[in-house]
């Protein structure tokens, strides 16, 4: 796709507009939550549990309180009352929380006290002086824990078991069968910006600076906790230093609000890096067993995908890894099942591509193994199993340009001529070279959003929606949509977002923010234009008098006749004559049930990877990644490319690096820092190329947007694993791929 896919004359939609907040960010002007220091502010520091299960038997509160600068120590005994129990889940999307309700410890890193002091140093020292003693109990922290159970649902309410066709029959009749098990590791959120809050009470009104991907959801839960009205809670979240699902819900920051209430002064609470490995959710480990059957010609006859995962002992979130097998490859029989164990960990949660990321690496590896078993090129094999309709439901796709993704990706990468057998290619230095492929897929989700648009007499526009910028470029893309909807230049539109006192723009999650909030913004702008049009066409003094709604379009601050663009007038003139300062439009957007029932809604992509493996040391180096993605309309190709790059690098991290090492005796993460919890450094990241494949989707939503935030991980991790096999002939089924994996190969 060319970078210029204009929606209409004068619009910046489809243009690679640079980040509107870029200058502020690189010059340090952008204020993140923790940069706010209201007068009288105190610092709160969490004391967290060193045991994973048991009770806090003693805290030396007196010692902490006696420390110079310490103002108060919050423990279960003096923690201000809450209107609902922290385990209450009546607010949508809620998980049980740990807000000092009692002395129980449910996981390592759980908050057991909060020390509030005049300085960060004093609070930190106070927390150390608490010197807790515990009554510890034995812990379970591995997938082999006893008591495996079959959950009713996985992810957010998806059935744990789904079937289509007869899998056993499909396997029985298959000419080729494979049966393999893949293990993915426990992973933790490591956004650059740790979770933090600055909270200030004014009577029953609460003012909060806090990064959140869900302003309204967060506001709702906090309102429930404190028994106050949502409108009395004002949250500012103009910039989020990475969220990836970890900042969707209220989180441990509620303790900061409680602390502020306790001391009657504003309080700042920021988690340390190490504290990110406790209460902010994680991706559970998985063990995925796949059975595939294929006919002699390579047509799949069955996919059976079983997922063992884990949740906490006290709450449920099951990584829905099997979901990816429902929609990707054509097969007359598909079954996905799950079971899980309960562990002494925090409750897992949404982590970029929850389910899709972990499921994809297993499914793509298995597909590669089957392609090899059939003796077919992995790309050809995937084309033979191309799903023309969604396999598990039989629904047509609203659009699917995956064939173009395969073709464009393969051409750019230079896939043709890839030797079928592994261990056939070496570079000049003797390194083993391998090429691998993975298909990317992610559902096009929508939530619920509202927006407000205003046209002012001075010819400018104002658009308001409580959107969330996590670094993905929301400030820019939504301003582009807003300007387009009002027929104004982007610089003529004042755009307000990132606050809870604006129309509820839903959540930045599920890769659905641009589609949902963008839809609402566009509708709001459209309504403002429609109101303005009504004024003009009904006014005999207007050159547009009698032109009728359909016959008028908005262009560069003017309404003009559709059939004759020379006849028209400026917004300002219309408003002035009508004696109005402004005209306003409201818009909303939500998933359309009818569309979802009729169509399968997904973005697709194909990722090609080249790796080089040191034959003696087993060091894997990804040297090239090419991803081609089709995700409907692209609002801003520059931002979208960045999302794909980030997703693909995350996939690289998934395949080769990230892994939280649990101490099975204590239930504690042993590498709770960025030195030993490995993510790739620049030197590990190869040339990454993202191709934006053109795709028009007339059904998915009004703007034809599918979402790009998470899809880049899918396909990529598997492509790298498959390239490693192609380089070495060794099929590694445990991730991340370790140096030792090739010993003796």
């Amino acid at each position, binding site marked *: 796709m060319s970078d210029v896919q204009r929606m209409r004359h004068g619009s910046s939609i489809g243009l690679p507009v640079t980040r509107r907040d870029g200058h502020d960010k690189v010059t340090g002007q952008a204020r993140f939550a923790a940069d706010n220091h209201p007068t009288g502010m105190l610092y709160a520091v969490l004391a967290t549990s060193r045991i994973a299960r048991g009770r806090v038997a003693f805290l030396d509160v007196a010692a902490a309180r006696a420390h110079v600068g310490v103002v108060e120590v919050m423990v279960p005994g003096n923690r201000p009352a809450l209107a609902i129990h922290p385990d209450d889940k009546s607010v949508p999307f809620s998980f049980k929380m740990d807000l000092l309700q009692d002395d129980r410890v449910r996981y390592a890193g759980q908050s057991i006290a909060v020390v509030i002091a005049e300085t960060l140093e004093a609070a930190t020292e106070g927390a*150390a002086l608490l010197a807790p003693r515990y009554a510890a109990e034995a812990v379970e922290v591995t997938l082999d824990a006893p008591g495996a159970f079959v959950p009713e649902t996985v992810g957010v309410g998806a059935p744990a078991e789904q079937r289509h066709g007869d899998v056993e029959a499909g396997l029985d009749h298959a000419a080729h069968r494979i049966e393999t098990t893949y293990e993915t590791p426990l992973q933790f959120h490591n956004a650059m910006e740790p979770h933090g809050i600055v909270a200030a009470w004014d009577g029953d009104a609460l003012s909060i600076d806090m990064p959140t991907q869900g302003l309204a959801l967060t506001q709702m839960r906090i309102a429930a906790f404190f028994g106050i009205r949502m409108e009395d809670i004002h949250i500012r979240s103009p910039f989020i230093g990475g969220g990836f699902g970890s900042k969707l819900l209220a989180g441990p920051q509620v303790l900061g609000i409680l602390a502020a209430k306790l001391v009657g002064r504003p309080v700042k609470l920021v988690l340390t890096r190490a504290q990110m490995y406790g209460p902010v959710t994680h991706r559970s480990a998985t063990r995925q067993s796949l059975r595939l059957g294929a006919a002699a010609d390579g047509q799949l006859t069955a996919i059976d995908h079983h997922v063992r995962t884990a949740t906490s002992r006290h709450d449920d979130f099951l990584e829905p890894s099997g979901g990816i097998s429902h929609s990707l490859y054509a097969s007359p029989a598909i079954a996905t099942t799950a079971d899980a164990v309960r562990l002494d960990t925090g409750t897992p949660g949404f982590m970029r591509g929850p389910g899709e990321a972990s499921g994809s690496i297993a499914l793509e590896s298995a597909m590669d193994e089957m392609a090899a078993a059939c003796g077919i090129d992995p790309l050809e094999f995937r084309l033979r199993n191309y799903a023309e309709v969604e396999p598990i439901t039989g629904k047509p796709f609203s659009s699917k340009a995956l064939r173009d993704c395969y073709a464009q990706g393969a051409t750019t990468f230079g896939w043709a001529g890839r030797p079928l057998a592994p261990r056939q290619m070496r570079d000049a230095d003797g390194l083993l070279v391998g090429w691998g492929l993975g298909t990317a897929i992610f559902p096009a989700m929508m939530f619920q959003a509202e927006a407000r648009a205003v046209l002012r007499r001075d010819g400018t526009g104002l658009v308001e929606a409580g959107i969330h910028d996590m670094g993905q470029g929301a400030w820019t893309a939504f301003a582009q949509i807003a300007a387009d909807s009002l027929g104004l230049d982007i610089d003529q539109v004042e755009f307000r977002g990132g606050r809870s006192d604006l129309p509820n723009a839903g959540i930045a999650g599920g890769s659905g923010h641009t589609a949902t909030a963008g839809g609402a913004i566009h509708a709001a702008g459209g309504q403002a234009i429609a109101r303005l049009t009504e004024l003009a066409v009904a006014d005999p003094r207007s050159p547009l008098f009698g032109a009728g709604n359909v016959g008028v379009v908005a262009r560069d601050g003017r309404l003009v006749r559709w059939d004759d663009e020379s006849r028209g007038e400026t917004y300002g003139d219309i408003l002035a004559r009508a004696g109005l300062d402004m005209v306003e439009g409201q818009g909303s957007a939500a998933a359309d049930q009818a569309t979802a029932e009729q169509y399968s809604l997904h973005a697709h992509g194909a990722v090609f990877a080249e790796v080089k493996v040191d034959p003696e040391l087993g060091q894997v180096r990804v040297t090239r990644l090419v991803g081609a993605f089709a995700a409907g309309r692209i609002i801003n190709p520059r931002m979208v490319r960045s999302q794909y790059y980030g997703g693909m690098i995350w996939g690289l991290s998934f395949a080769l690096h990230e892994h939280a*090492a649990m101490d099975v005796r204590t239930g504690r993460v042993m590498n709770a820092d960025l030195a030993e919890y490995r993510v790739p450094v620049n030197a*590990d990241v190869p040339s990454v190329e993202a191709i934006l494949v053109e795709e028009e989707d007339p059904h998915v939503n009004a703007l034809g947007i599918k979402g790009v935030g998470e899809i880049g991980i899918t396909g990529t991790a598997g492509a790298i694993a498959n390239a490693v096999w192609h380089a070495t002939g060794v099929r590694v089924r445990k991730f991340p791929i370790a*140096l030792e994996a090739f*010993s003796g190969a």
Partner: protein
Amino acid sequence: MSTIWLQPKTLPEALAMLAADPALTPFAGGTDLYPAQAARFAWGEALPEAILDLGALPEFWGIAADATQWRIGAGATWAQLRDAALPAEFDVLRAASCQVGGAQIQNRGTIGGNLCNASPAADGVPPLLALDAAVELASLRGTRTLPLGKFLLGNRQTERAPDELLTAVLVPHRAGDLRSGFEKLGARHYLVISIVMVAAMVRMEAGRIAEAAIAVGACSAVAQRLPALEAALRGSRPGEVAVTPGQLDHLAPIDDARATGAYRREAALVLVRRLLARLALPEALVA
């Protein structure tokens, strides 16, 4: 979280403070101490009570040569070592300096801290073993010099008495056709703790190896020289002597979160072979 922080302005003052309270923890760059402190705190262990900050000692920082040896102040940072104009035998140390952490760590971390911390994975140790370095220890009782191999006793254990400070690293001058190099293997390509590292220095004479010094780190509690291999190489032409697993037999690599012992043993052999081959490249042999 320490309750006392002392910052002496001269070495005698520092030694007097340490003599008066040998429980003081010397503090140079803090790049080992702070992470260790965080880990101790996380696991509920005791923290150092009192700190002796060496940052203001003028004697600590320089790199200088006298008639017989190079004297590297204990407070020399990796950045200093990386950028200093030192002769070819120091290529091994320079290469290691470029790979300790990232630039921020290189600006803060010191060679003295690296040696006193005595991690099995300390990147400074194998190069200095290969260079036959000695360390200088000072206390009010006097100054003594120990070969580095004698100073390092085990995992986080050294010969340093509680009242002593490490003041300098001493490296003898060498003449002749010298080459040296360093190989580091980690689980990612930069900013990583070594799984294995190998340091080597060879002196060539008339196309033969007159002297070889090879050390392997992260494969035993203290990095080890490879005397059998060094002896076998002496007098040989580059490439003539094969490196055998037997020459690495005395290493005792362990299994840990970063790698298995068996893998470390294999990788050490590979890295030794590669490093020797690299130092013996024909273009490097033209005297």
